[in-house]
């Protein structure tokens, strides 16, 4: 057998008392796509950071092409032909594509000759791999998919033979993800080695040749992809069987909790994002809004929760008329009985440098339960936080820890616990499981169904079609700001996919 492209032997890494990697062995064959799956916090990113020289292993060795190497910093990794596409792109937003590609690989103290070199190389990579991108474009003007392409070009320009991609599809639209996979397959066929880190099992099945599973800092299994299944991988990841479908009974909807009539919302640039939308959400049902990101779902949630003013329309929430055109006070809307789990927990849902117990009451800090006169009642807050930690199995169970130190799934549970424990009549919930590991997904889905079964109305917005289909009692599909169709929970993926792409269902059938 040929020498593997890269081999790790007995890698150990601890951060303080946390053992992020425990005697990891990994063998990645040349010219393959090797997937690494695991829950958030399983140690995948740490392991890749060690390969890329961002951290040094406490013990163990790395072999590239059969030879033992020391990777002291990213420079050494680049020298050994290792390139990395980070989950959060390492691009400078106000520089051009050329400048970003050449940063750190300028070749001479003056830029002139290097720029010409980069242009020629970008041209070659474009023709060879279909990695087309305008070299003079400013990064922030490019779509997320294009920005990721620049990251790949950066690695290839530096002569990477081994390309590591950390959660590459988290930010991509489905078509961008498909294009990325095509590019990766082509690179593999040309002899490059690709390491793909993800927690989306379907991607692993679709594209990888071999898959390794990590759990709690350990490498628990490596399998040829063809000989494994989503079920087996999921079980290996969490160490027990997981339900990829949600068990739920028939919905028993009551009267309407939320009625939306002719709602139109423009974004800050004045572009119509929600266009004359009408629907109702009844008590005891989950209404899912499917759609590719950016088709107005975010603006719809913002208008309903009072964060953004609409330009037209009517809202009735729990029997009370609310004028969506007026400047609404989100706190007032919450008091009426609407809780909101925002799509982006970092941006809207949490203040990351705050302690967990502070985030656990954020937005409800006026509640007399948490106040003693003019002052916050710290003891009451911590008691409340501890009970939520217990009920939602938030880990680590320390309510004084800064929220930034919790994993994505646990952060999401903090937001969910805060909003659900208010016992609202309507729950608005956006991307409930984005960046959340498999174990937590199952928990969150059960909680959402429990809300419904308790007779509450749930409006679910998600770009994960599987999630929409698993949870919703009715599915509304949004495209270009309009609701283009309503389907039952049995709707097929293909049917919904066509609607999401703006193809009218009847036309497609005809």
């Amino acid at each position: 057998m040929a020498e593997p492209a890269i081999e790790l032997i007995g890698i150990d890494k601890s951060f303080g008392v946390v053992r992020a990697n425990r005697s990891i062995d990994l063998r990645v064959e040349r010219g393959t796509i090797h997937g690494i799956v695991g829950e958030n916090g399983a140690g995948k990113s740490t392991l890749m950071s060690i390969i890329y020289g961002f951290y040094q292993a406490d013990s163990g060795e790395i072999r590239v092409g059969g030879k033992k190497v020391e990777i002291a910093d990213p420079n050494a990794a680049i020298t050994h032909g290792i390139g990395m596409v980070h989950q959060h792109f390492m691009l400078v937003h106000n520089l051009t594509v050329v400048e970003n590609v050449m940063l750190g690989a300028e070749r001479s103290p003056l830029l002139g000759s290097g720029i010409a070199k980069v242009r020629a190389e970008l041209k070659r990579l474009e023709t060879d791999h279909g990695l087309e991108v305008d070299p003079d474009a400013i990064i922030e003007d490019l779509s997320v998919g294009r920005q990721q392409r620049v990251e790949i070009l950066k690695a290839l320009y530096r002569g990477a033979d081994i390309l590591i991609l950390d959660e590459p599809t988290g930010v991509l639209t489905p078509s961008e993800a498909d294009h990325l996979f095509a590019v990766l397959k082509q690179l593999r066929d040309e002899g490059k080695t690709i390491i793909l880190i993800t927690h989306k099992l379907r991607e692993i099945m679709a594209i990888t040749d071999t898959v390794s599973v990590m759990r709690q800092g350990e490498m628990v299994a490596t399998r040829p992809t063809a000989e494994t299944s989503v079920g087996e991988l999921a079980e290996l990841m969490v160490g027990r069987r997981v339900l990829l479908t949600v068990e739920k009974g028939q919905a028993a909807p009551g009267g309407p909790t939320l009625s939306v009539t002719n709602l139109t919302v423009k974004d800050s640039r004045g572009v119509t994002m929600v266009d004359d939308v009408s629907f109702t959400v009844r008590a005891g049902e989950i209404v899912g809004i499917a759609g590719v990101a950016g088709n107005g779902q975010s603006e719809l949630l913002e208008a309903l929760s009072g964060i953004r003013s609409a330009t037209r329309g009517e809202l009735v929430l729990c029997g009370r008329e609310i004028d969506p055109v007026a400047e609404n006070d989100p706190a007032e809307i919450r008091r009426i009985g609407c809780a909101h789990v925002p799509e982006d927990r970092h941006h809207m849902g949490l203040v990351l440098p705050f302690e967990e117990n502070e985030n656990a009451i954020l937005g409800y800090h006026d509640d007399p339960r948490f106040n003693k006169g003019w002052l916050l009642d710290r003891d009451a807050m911590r008691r409340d936080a501890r009970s939520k930690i217990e009920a939602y199995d938030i880990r680590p169970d320390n309510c004084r820890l800064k929220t930034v130190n919790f994993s994505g799934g646990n952060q999401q549970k903090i937001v969910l616990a805060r909003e659900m424990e208010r016992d609202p009549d309507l729950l608005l919930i956006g991307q409930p499981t984005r960046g959340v590991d498999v174990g937590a997904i199952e928990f969150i889905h059960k909680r959402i169904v429990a809300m419904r079964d308790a007779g509450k109305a749930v409006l679910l917005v998600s770009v994960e079609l599987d999630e929409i289909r698993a949870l919703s009692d009715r599915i509304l599909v949004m495209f270009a700001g309009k609701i283009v169709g309503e389907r039952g929970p049995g709707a097929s993926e293909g049917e919904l996919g066509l609607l999401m792409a703006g193809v009218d269902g009847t036309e497609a059938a005809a």
Partner: protein
Amino acid sequence: MDSAALLDLVDSTIRLSTPLLFAALAGLYSERSGIFDISLEGKMLIAAFASASAAAVWGSAAIGLCFGILAAVAFALVHGVASITYRGNQIVSGVAINFIAAGLTIILGQSWFGRGGNTPSLFSAGRFLPVHLPGADAAASVPILGPIYSGVLSGQTALVYVAFLMVPLTWWVLFRTRFGLRLRAVGENPAAVDTAGISVTFLRYRAVIICGVLCGFAGSYLATGQAAGFTRDMTAGKGYIALAALIFANWRPVRVMFACLLFGFLDAISIRVQGVSFPLVGQVSVQFVQALPYILTVVLLAGFVGKATPPRAGGVPYVKER
């Protein structure tokens, strides 16, 4: 206003802009690298004091300049150690440096020279003197261009020419060299620089040292070019005005020059309109005229720089993320 007065106004605009220009360019290097620097004022002050003291002792403006630069670089390194190595708060560190400079110059000045915080007056060798460009006297008789050449372009001190040459040089460094590319990148996204295999720490230290050198020029110009010796608190907020010019110019070198010329012009005007009677309003009070550049600074910053976008990573210590 006749043409002689106009030329005089332009001439003093240039002279008054020079320290602002040095300081603002100093700030540009530091802030482009992601280290906010409100201690331009303090570094100018300590440099002015050090240069005037050294020039007074050794009777040489060049030695004065060297000491001015050394003092400012030393203070810049304090700011660097606090904000780069120890990841301290850059504003707090900057304020501390301003306080230290204000106190130290007075204490040392009093104990060394015993003149209430001032240094002895400098005579010709201890000062930067006007440089007469070749043919200035002959050209003076040529209409229009002649007086501009002889009265404005010629007859400035060497440091004025250095300051204005720093503008194209800074532009070239920033946009045409490897160091400049990395400098622009590290102020926006240090993680991108780090993952590209470049040391964020070393890059930022170099930027901070350049900042110190230029502050050294700024302070030395004040004490040994514009004036003849150090007087206590002689920077009088020029470091802050330079910072305002930097923000107003959106951290771009050529715009920095125009912003500094504008502030220098306001300063020059304020000297000239003292005691002059205006129609309708009559004689304007001296205090109001002196406050004019500062008032206009506030107005300009409030009204015109709505879109100022500072380097994104500015003020944030770089810590490797897990």
